[in-house]
């Protein structure tokens, strides 16, 4: 147990000041961030490419085939801190790349690894996920997308939903049904589909949080067998097993065919972008800014009112609890408390709180109005909090298995 201040050697301070800060100012400039805030692309490809060029994506690529040397943990923490300080509530890096990289390294054919490995490490190949479909969200094994073998190729038909970043990525990692006769979990294959291929169409979906996500329509889309990840019909195990060591959810008795494992892994692998721990401090800080600057009729500031400080304190506590609660609980807690907290903060501001960012009279840059909408998605994206609670109940706390999970 140690919460002491890390003493920074001169070269680390130099790295921070002369490398990281200018880098962030260049690649996460106000203009870049404003663009992303406006378009809600879900990530900033140029930023990720720049990180890769610096060798700062090494966390994600250190399992790779070449000898890229990654950042040491301290420098990685500095990069993360500065990124977060500038990006605030935006996610300039698409978390799904880490998941795809891991799966490609573990299950990809030699050709595939050679073909896209360097690009992934350099950060100029971007990959998104294609697990979810309009008719299956929480029940990720119930997909309807089908892939049929045709010689050396797979022919894919179906549609994927919530493929965030697909319009700016080169690949989508999809799950497809490849065996109509086998059980739900023994009939899925994972394929990495180039988004530029004929028969693949990306269509945007606008969300309440302002971020764009996508449908990916697959209409007789063809992909060579070398783009297969893992054995045929064993895609469920690929998607789940590849990350078994990382998900922190297994009690040892859970098998890879666990119905909900994919969901868990997706949650874990998307890492920062789905932990909902970075948004809350940003939202709270915006409310504090409001309270320090908003004057009442008697010329006092909102923050001079003990009742306002009490409300802020209550939410500051929630924010801290959300920040420090360890996985696998963390995400559930963070989502619940973020939804409650943003609503309370928005209410505290009153009428002007409803004004959208950029409009006349928007409070604290409209962060709270946005956050109130954004927060609603956190209990859904990457598998609902209900499913996560089922998993924790069973795998972590050892409670008897919920019926929903039994009936497949």
């Amino acid at each position, binding site marked *: 147990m140690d919460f002491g201040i890390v003493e920074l050697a001169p070269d680390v301070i130099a790295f921070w000041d002369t490398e990281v800060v200018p880098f962030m100012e260049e690649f996460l400039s106000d203009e870049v961030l404003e663009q992303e805030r406006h378009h809600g692309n879900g990530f900033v490809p140029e930023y990720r490419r720049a990180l890769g060029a610096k060798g700062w994506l090494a966390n994600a690529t250190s399992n790779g085939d070449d000898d890229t040397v990654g950042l040491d943990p301290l420098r990685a923490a500095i990069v993360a801190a500065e990124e977060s300080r500038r990006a605030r509530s935006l996610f300039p890096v698409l978390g799904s790349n880490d998941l795809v990289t891991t799966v490609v390294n573990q299950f990809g054919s030699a050709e595939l690894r050679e073909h896209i490995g360097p690009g992934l490490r350099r950060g100029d190949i971007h990959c998104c996920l294609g697990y979810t479909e309009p008719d299956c969200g929480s029940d990720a094994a119930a997909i309807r997308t089908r892939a049929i073998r045709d010689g050396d190729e797979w022919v894919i038909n179906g549609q994927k939903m919530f493929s965030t970043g697909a319009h700016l990525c080169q690949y989508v990692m999809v799950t497809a049904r490849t065996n109509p006769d086998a059980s739900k979990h023994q009939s899925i294959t994972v394929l990495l589909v180039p988004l530029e291929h004929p028969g693949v169409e990306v269509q945007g979906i606008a969300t309440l949080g302002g971020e764009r996500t996508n449908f990916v329509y697959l209409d007789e889309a063809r992909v060579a067998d070398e783009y297969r990840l893992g054995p045929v019909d064993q895609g469920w195990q690929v998607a789940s097993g590849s990350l078994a060591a990382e998900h922190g959810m297994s009690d040892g008795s859970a098998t890879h065919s666990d*119905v909900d494992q994919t969901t868990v892994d997706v949650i874990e692998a998307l890492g920062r972008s789905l932990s909902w721990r970075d948004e809350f401090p940003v939202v709270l800080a915006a409310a504090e800014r409001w309270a320090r600057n908003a004057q009442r009729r008697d010329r006092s500031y909102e923050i001079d009112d003990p009742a306002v400080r009490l409300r802020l304190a209550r939410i500051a506590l929630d924010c801290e609890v959300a920040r420090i609660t360890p996985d696998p609980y963390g995400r559930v807690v963070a989502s619940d408390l973020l939804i409650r907290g943003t609503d309370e903060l928005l209410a505290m501001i009153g009428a002007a709180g409803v004004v959208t960012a950029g409009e006349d009279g928007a409070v604290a840059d409209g962060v709270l109005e946005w956050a109130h909408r954004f927060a609603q998605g956190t209990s859904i994206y990457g598998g609902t909090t209900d499913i996560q609670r089922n998993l924790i109940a069973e795998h972590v706390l050892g409670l008897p298995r919920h019926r929903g999970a039994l009936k497949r």
Partner: protein
Amino acid sequence: MSPRVIRRQDYSLSEEQLQLSKVFASLFERESPSVRVRAAEPVGFDADLWQQLTGAGVISMALPEAVGGDDATLVDLALVAEEFGRSMAPVPLIDAMTAARLLAAVGAPEGVVRALAAGTKTATIALHPFHARERQLISSGAMADIVVGLDGDALVMSEGPPPAAVANLACAPLAWRDLSTNDHTRSIVAEGLAAELAFAHAVLEWKALMAAAQTGIANGARILASEYVTERHAFGVPIGTFQAISHPIVDIAAGVEGARRLALRAAWFLEHEPECALGDVLMAFVAASDVANRAASFGIHALGGLGFTLESDMQLYFRRARGWTLLAGDPQADLQQLGDHLYGPEPTH
């Protein structure tokens, strides 16, 4: 010694009231489907629909017979507001009703009131008293011809082309206004205690009607969620079979029942014993605002990813659940007012 007072506790609606509710439910359902609500965004005003509704008498029904109105009771108006909320019709129903009633009550020029009744003009109300050089965000301020508000002890009215709309969470036609500046568009319609009392009463009417509208929103969101979770399957069963889904829906339905009773009772007291209405109005407003917010937020969760897309009607409810009520300010201020009313040394009104 016992107080020897027994009040009736009759929440039932008369045949006429049930009929009225039904008529407006189908009117809104027919004329304001969600596709029309969406089409009016982001400004949130559909002039054709408003003309149609005022033509059908939604404002005149709320006015006294003396000015050509139908003198409907506030309970009747609350029933209409409830259906309005459920439909989310992009019209300034509550603002216009409240402002017109206020102007009629203080004896504003008959020409104005008749124009409001006929729907040739629309008025809205600034819900907070004005103070020197302090603008406020006015509900329907971006489309109303007339804004009425309180400046000191003067009830003032400003007529003229509305200012530009400000984009907002609720997709409502909001605009900033400052009626404390005495320009040529402004006139005083009442002064002194009478003006202040009339204004305070109008704000309570607005809150009671908004409470009714919010129970409509909550109920609409609850029904939409219920339908979805009955159809949508996961793990081989409808997701509505999971208690994590069904129990919150039950709690929301319970909240709707409670808030609806409070809202209708508040309207009854405003109509029949306005001096006893304050506590009920505040309670109704806070409870309805709360349940609408919970219903729409959980509704999005129940609809999953779909609920979070702009394709979903649930987000329409969600924006208005918080957005509409916040126009009256922080609900905690209403609770504080309730506390001061129930427990304070002096009555606040």
